[in-house]
């Protein structure tokens, strides 16, 4: 990586072709967002939220997502955050899992058997996430960044973001660390900066290429797959720290998911 000042002096301006194709791709993104089936997952998620399950035959309607038991409106925009009852920083999917275990009495093994769905049947977690995030539309994102454990998670997330590892020596920053970079035609936001805002504001998202609603845990999971790394544990501290790091970087961005992406 060339030293910092050389990049500044080069002030490379992207060639004209890439410039207007960027505009065209943004138009495509607006068009698919207009006519997206994402709404179907929000509806299915609302049904799952209210469905009694587990040995206790209880729904998730008493689950506290941070704003009080059962409060869904605006809850996602304040995640990830520290939860006193679990003495742990949690993102949405980790918190949902917590409620499945504590309220519904389900086993961790059963509740995490199928956290990623496929194009025929979405997973319970994907439907729930679509519903809950939809209830934060318009709220400025404000993940927790004051509690000591939140600060520690942010610091860990940042180190994980820049740590190069694996057979291809990649870190997240290899692709998301420098402005105006693309993989093929895919623009790569600098997630270590405020430019993370528009990304964290539109995940979870319906992916047209796979006809599936995908969550943030999946997003991190699939990045590590393409970094040629082993698989991250679902709802592990490492994934939560990364999610918190990205979301705090994008603090203030109005949430507008679930998104619709290529």
């Amino acid at each position: 990586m060339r030293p910092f000042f050389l990049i500044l002096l080069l002030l490379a301006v992207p060639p004209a072709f890439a410039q207007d194709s960027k505009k065209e791709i943004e138009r495509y993104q607006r068009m698919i967002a207009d006519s997206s089936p994402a709404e179907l997952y929000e509806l299915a998620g609302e049904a799952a939220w209210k469905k009694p399950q587990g040995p206790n035959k209880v729904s998730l309607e008493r689950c506290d997502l941070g704003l009080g038991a059962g409060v869904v409106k605006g809850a996602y925009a304040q995640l990830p955050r520290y939860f006193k009852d679990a003495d742990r920083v949690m993102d949405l999917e980790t918190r949902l899992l917590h409620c499945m275990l504590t309220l519904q009495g389900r086993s961790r093994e059963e509740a995490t058997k199928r956290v990623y769905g496929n194009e025929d049947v979405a997973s319970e977690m994907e439907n729930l996430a679509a519903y809950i995030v939809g209830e934060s539309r318009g709220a400025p994102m404000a993940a927790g960044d004051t509690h000591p454990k939140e600060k520690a998670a942010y610091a860990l997330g940042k180190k994980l973001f820049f740590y190069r590892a694996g057979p291809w020596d990649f870190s997240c920053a290899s692709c998301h660390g420098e402005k105006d970079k693309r993989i093929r035609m895919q623009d790569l936001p600098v997630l270590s900066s405020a430019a993370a805002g528009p990304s964290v504001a539109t995940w979870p998202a319906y992916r047209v290429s796979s006809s599936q609603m995908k969550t943030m845990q999946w997003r991190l999971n699939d990045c590590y797959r393409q970094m040629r790394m082993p698989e991250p544990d679902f709802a592990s501290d490492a994934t939560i720290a990364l999610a918190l790091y990205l979301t705090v970087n994008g603090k203030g961005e109005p949430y507008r998911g679930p998104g619709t992406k290529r």
Partner: protein
Amino acid sequence: MKRVLFIIAIVLGACSSTPQRHFTDENDLREVQAVLKRDFHARGSATMARMESDAVQRACNLYDNAPPEELSKKLEAEQMAAIKFPDGSLMGDWKRGETIAQSGRGMQWNDGPKDVAGGSCYNCHQLALKEPSYGNIGPSLLGFGKLRGTSPEMQKYAYGRVYNSKAYSLCSQMPRLGHSGTLSEQQIKDVVAYLLDPQSPVNQ
């Protein structure tokens, strides 16, 4: 003129107070590595052995991809020494090279033993003009062979760069495709042909 001075001012400012590095010392690196070993698990071909880090990764992590000069030189030389250059022509079949450059498969946990690995070249580089969907993380390689010719030295340079880019620029973002076992000797020769062969669309 005023604007250029202004830019230089920023640059000097940026250099004098070197930004706080991401990792303070080797211990810091070990702590992050421990988290990765705790919170990840093997899947398919992606085993936990991939969590071990070598001297190159430690140097690039510790110094934010800009290690001191003599450390870089030392490690680059070690990486160069480890490259096995086949003898004879290093140019294979550019048609197979194009398929390798287009394919993003290889070394992922969902790549089966029968799946043929690719080089993911188009993810980061422009190569042939006829392929508009190219990345720009790496420099454009359009007309690489037309500009540089096909001398044995150039074949060796191209082969070495693909085999282990860190032998030339220690903290390059380009994967060590040969060193990591992603591409075979023949596949790297085919990529070299795609880059250098006058018939290749890269040079049309």
